């Protein structure tokens, strides 16, 4: 639920309950006050009516007594009165009535009735001069005579008109109350008139205010008018005693009261509702303004804020909770953004060098390729050569220092002024000693070469770091977009290929990716695939005779593997042996070769004699193997090999340092009766000092050294041969193709020579044929050194 709705739901019921409670109480109070007020009004009206009545009553008494004192009247009632009787009576009556200013009446009746109930005199003031006496009056006087009521005053009601009747019965002679029971000489003087003002007032109150009136005769305690139902009757009424007998009750009918109360209730309810609404709206408005809106604003800010959003508005310094919350969030966000930055960096960069890591590099590449499309992009894929050497010999800390230093310098190079690429670049450390540079909108090939050479330049005299110089170099593969690939993946892979080729080409160089390179790579792949099938039936063994330098006699053969693949045709060992070695196939191949040669061994012995030495190439890697020696022993057993004329040739290029295991393996081989030869010596991989430690019998000088040897420039080879000889090694020279070379080598004291000048490698059959021929032709013509 939204905060604003919740505010409504929270506040409205509370306000409504409170207000309703207040208004209910107020209503009860008002109701009571209203009833009190109504009662007061009734009382007031009652006293008003009473005072009205009192004025009439007062007047009645005054006028009636003056009437009784009136001499004209006395004349009138005197028995046997003369014609003058009645003279001035009406005048007197009229004057008295005319002068009255206080009392309002329409008509006043004065009647004198004798004991025979005969009207002696009748006078109607203010009315019709021809009016006659009311028969009711006669009836009343008859009753009064009968009951001997001489003084009478009462109120009479007729159709809501109240009249007062006042009478006195007097003796005509004495003008006093009759004393005896004989009333013959008595007359009743009666005054009667309507209480006009009272009647008018009653009528007014009844029509305009809705009051009802009842007359209660206290003698029989019965109301003259039928009273309204008890419940209403009891509610609001006031009574006033007009005469000892008559009470006037004035009441407001309950229905009227209820109507007023209902009106009051409705009025108050409406005001309550309005107040509730007003208060709620006001309160909620204020709450919204000062509380929920700031919260919502904060919420909006929070919702829109993302981790990398640096533009989060700085909160105000107000001293309220929301500002505080805002500040707290701001701080939190700042921290979060910072830690996001850190983790982003961690995710994207290499912790050691602070360069991009592989993942980031990959995404950069992808983004770049997708984004740029046509813009040329250059990718330089680098791998430090022989870095393992540093790690192995100087420890990983040093290795790390070197990597860091290299990264640093790499950055400097890319940033150096003359190489500035305004369009940007990415540098990444992909793994271990692998690095990559991407140049956005790559310059011309010349420019790229400049970068590559600058990088190579870092390793020109070894890599110096922390005042040390490390013998490492770098190989760089370069691929360009879109020329060399349409996708990042392709580009990376092709750069990798180029780099690999650079390595293949002897490291410490850069190599542009090319289609030929790709084809070569393709072939390597095909070779690898074929090799992995290990279909040894495609392989066959050739043997290259090795001749004794002195005699020129064949003293041994070097077993060389030949491979004829259905698809690839003849594949040279130079092509596939490195693959065998790098792809870990060497042990199987070596064992197969050994087994194969051992199978040929009886034939070889038959052809060349039992002393013939058989050289078999093994991968230097097998010297690290734990199983090779055992398997070799099994082969030896199987072939019942007793003679120890087997030479195992280990290529000098092996990068294996002289580990304990290698040394142990070499010693084991020697103990098992094998002779060990260091192959390809002179290609520069083996330090001379290492030779001292190796339990080597024979050193084979590499063809490259022999090739370089001319008549003028052979000192180095001769010195080397001398050195080896002095160390007690047999020396064999390889790749001799000219007589001149053979002469020099022979002169240098080389023990054995092999090369095309003498014999090419040949099949066992050809070898057998050769030896048969040799036996018949008594040695070769001209080839013999001798």
């Amino acid at each position, binding site marked *: 639920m939204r905060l604003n709705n919740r505010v409504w739901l929270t506040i409205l019921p509370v306000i409504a309950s409170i207000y309703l409670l207040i208004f209910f109480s107020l209503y009860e109070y008002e109701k009571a006050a209203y009833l009190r007020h109504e009662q007061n009004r009734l009382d007031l009206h009652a006293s008003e009516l009473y005072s009205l009545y009192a004025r009439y009553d007062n007047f009645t008494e005054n006028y009636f007594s003056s009437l009784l004192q009136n*001499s*004209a009247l006395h*004349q009138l009632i005197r028995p046997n009165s*003369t*014609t*003058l*009787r*009645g*003279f*001035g009576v*009406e*005048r*007197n009556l*009229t004057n008295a009535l*005319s002068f009255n200013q206080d009392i309002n009446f329409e008509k006043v009746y004065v009647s004198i009735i004798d004991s025979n109930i005969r009207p002696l*005199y009748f*006078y*109607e*003031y*203010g*009315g*019709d*001069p*021809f009016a006659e006496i009311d028969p009711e009056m006669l009836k009343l006087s008859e009753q009064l005579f009968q009951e001997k009521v001489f003084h009478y005053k009462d109120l009479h009601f007729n159709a809501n008109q109240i009249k007062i009747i006042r009478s006195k019965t007097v003796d005509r002679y004495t003008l006093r109350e009759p004393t005896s029971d004989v009333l013959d000489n008595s007359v009743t003087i009666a005054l009667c008139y309507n209480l006009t003002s009272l009647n008018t007032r009653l009528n007014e109150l009844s029509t305009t205010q809705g009051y009802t009136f009842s007359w209660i005769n206290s003698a029989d305690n019965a109301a003259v008018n039928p009273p309204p139902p008890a419940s209403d009757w009891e509610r609001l009424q006031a009574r006033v005693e007009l005469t000892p007998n008559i009470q006037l009750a004035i009441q407001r009918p309950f229905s009227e009261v209820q109507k007023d109360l209902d009106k009051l209730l409705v009025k108050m309810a409406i005001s309550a509702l309005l107040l509730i609404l007003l208060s709620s709206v006001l309160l909620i408005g204020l709450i919204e303004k000062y509380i929920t809106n700031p919260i919502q604003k904060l919420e909006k800010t929070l919702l829109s804020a993302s981790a990398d959003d640096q533009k989060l508005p700085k909160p105000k310094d107000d001293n309220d909770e929301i500002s505080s919350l805002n500040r707290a969030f701001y701080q939190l966000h700042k921290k979060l953004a910072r830690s996001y930055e850190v983790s982003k960096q961690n995710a994207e960069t290499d912790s050691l060098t602070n360069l991009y890591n592989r993942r980031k590099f990959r995404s950069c590449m992808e983004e770049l390729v997708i984004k740029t499309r046509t813009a040329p992009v250059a990718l330089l894929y680098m791998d430090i050569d022989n870095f393992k050497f540093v790690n192995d010999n100087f420890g990983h800390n040093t290795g790390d220092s070197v990597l860091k230093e290299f990264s640093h310098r790499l950055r400097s190079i890319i940033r150096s002024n003359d190489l500035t690429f305004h369009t940007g670049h990415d540098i990444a450390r992909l793994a271990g000693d692998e690095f990559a540079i991407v140049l956005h909108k790559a310059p011309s090939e010349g420019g790229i070469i400049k970068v590559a050479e600058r990088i190579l330049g870092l390793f020109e005299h070894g890599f110096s770091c922390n005042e040390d110089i490390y013998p490492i170099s770098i190989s760089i593969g370069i691929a360009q977009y879109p020329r060399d690939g349409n996708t990042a993946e392709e580009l990376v892979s092709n750069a990798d290929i180029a780099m690999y080729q650079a390595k293949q080409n002897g490291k410490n160089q850069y190599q542009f990716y090319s289609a030929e390179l790709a084809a070569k790579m393709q072939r390597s792949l095909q070779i690898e695939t074929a090799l992995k099938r290990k279909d040894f039936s495609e392989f066959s063994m050739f043997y290259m005779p090795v001749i004794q330098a002195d005699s020129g006699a064949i003293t041994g053969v070097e077993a060389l593997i030949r491979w004829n693949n259905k698809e690839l045709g003849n594949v040279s060992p130079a092509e596939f042996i490195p693959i065998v070695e790098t792809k870990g196939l060497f042990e199987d191949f070596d064992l197969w070769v050994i087994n194969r040669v051992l199978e040929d061994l009886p034939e070889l012995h038959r052809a060349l004699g039992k002393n013939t030495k058989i050289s078999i190439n093994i991968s230097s890697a097998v010297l690290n193997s734990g199983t090779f020696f055992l398997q070799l022993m099994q082969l030896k057993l199987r072939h019942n090999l007793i003679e120890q004329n087997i030479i195992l040739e280990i290529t000098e290029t092996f990068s294996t340092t002289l580990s304990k295991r290698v040394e142990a393996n070499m010693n084991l081989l020697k103990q098992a009766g094998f002779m060990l030869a260091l192959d390809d010596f002179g290609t520069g991989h083996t330090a001379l000092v290492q030779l001292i430690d190796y339990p080597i019998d024979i050193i084979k000088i590499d063809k490259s050294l022999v090739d370089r040897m001319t008549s003028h420039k052979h000192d180095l080879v001769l010195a080397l041969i001398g050195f080896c000889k002095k160390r007690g090694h047999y020396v064999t020279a390889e790749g001799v193709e000219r007589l001149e070379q053979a002469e020099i080598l022979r002169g240098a004291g080389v023990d054995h020579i092999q090369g095309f000048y003498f014999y090419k490698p040949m099949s066992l059959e050809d070898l057998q044929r050769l030896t048969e021929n040799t036996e018949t032709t008594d040695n070769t013509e001209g080839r013999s050194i001798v």
Partner: protein
Amino acid sequence: MVILNWVDYLAPQVEAAFEAETGHTLKTVYFDKDNERDEILVSAAGKNFDIAIMDNVAVKQFTKSGALHPLPDALYDNIDEEWRSACGNTGLPYFWGTLGLAYRLDKFDSPPRSWRALMMPAPRIKGHIAMQTDSVDLLLPALKTLGLPMNTENIDDLKRAYHLLQEQQSSVLTYEYIVSYYDTAADKDDIYLALVFSGDQNSLNLGEPSPRWGYSIPEEGSSLWLDCLVILDSSDHKPAAEQFLAFINRPDIAALNAEVVGPATPNTPARALLDAGILNDEATYPPQSVIKNSTRYHLLTPETIGLRSRIVNAVTQAAHKNEEKANVLATDAGRQE
């Protein structure tokens, strides 16, 4: 002696002459309504008076109740035969006259000849009428207009007359006797037509440079009134009173009194002493035809008297009420202004 008299009804010269001749002093108390006089005399206050002026009907009434002192026969020798017994033996005929209309000479081209001019007035006369409150005289114009007898005791006749009076009421400016009203009222000039006794026109014309009022006796006939001097039985100065009556009855005094006061005198020898101009004034001494056409007042039954006085009260009170209402309205209007 105390005389209860109408205003201007005794010549001051006569009064002075009597006092000079006899040494008695005369004190005159005035009344202006017959019934007022009757009431005074009937009441205890009646005992304060020695001599009173009364119409001949009242004389009969008072005589019946023994309130009047019988007069010596010799007093009547000078009285016209036709009037001699009109006051009985307790009243000395004093003046006689008719009831008629006083009209403003400048408002009427010719004298009004009918009671209708009073009872059913022309529009321009409405609101300019003065009436009286005497129970007989007030009813007379109405009864005459309706062709009814003046002294009727028939209730229906009286009812018709009452209704006519009620109808006339709105045209009446005042019911006060014009002679009294003329002395005091500010709007006296608004009265164009009034019910008066013959001779009243002279009072009205007093002080006017030229006669303003005329007197007319309607053709329907009028009443003949006769005022008498009476000595109250309760008087303590009866001999002096008789002396006064005798003095008044002397022809020279009667002639002087008639000349000063104005109405017709019933004193035969006195008339011989009067100017021909006075005697020839038909308003005072109407021709025989008019006299024949006129009715004398009768003594009515107490019931009729009572009824008539109630009618008068009803008419005048209603007028009074209307007047009050008008006053209230005027006051209210004044307040609002």
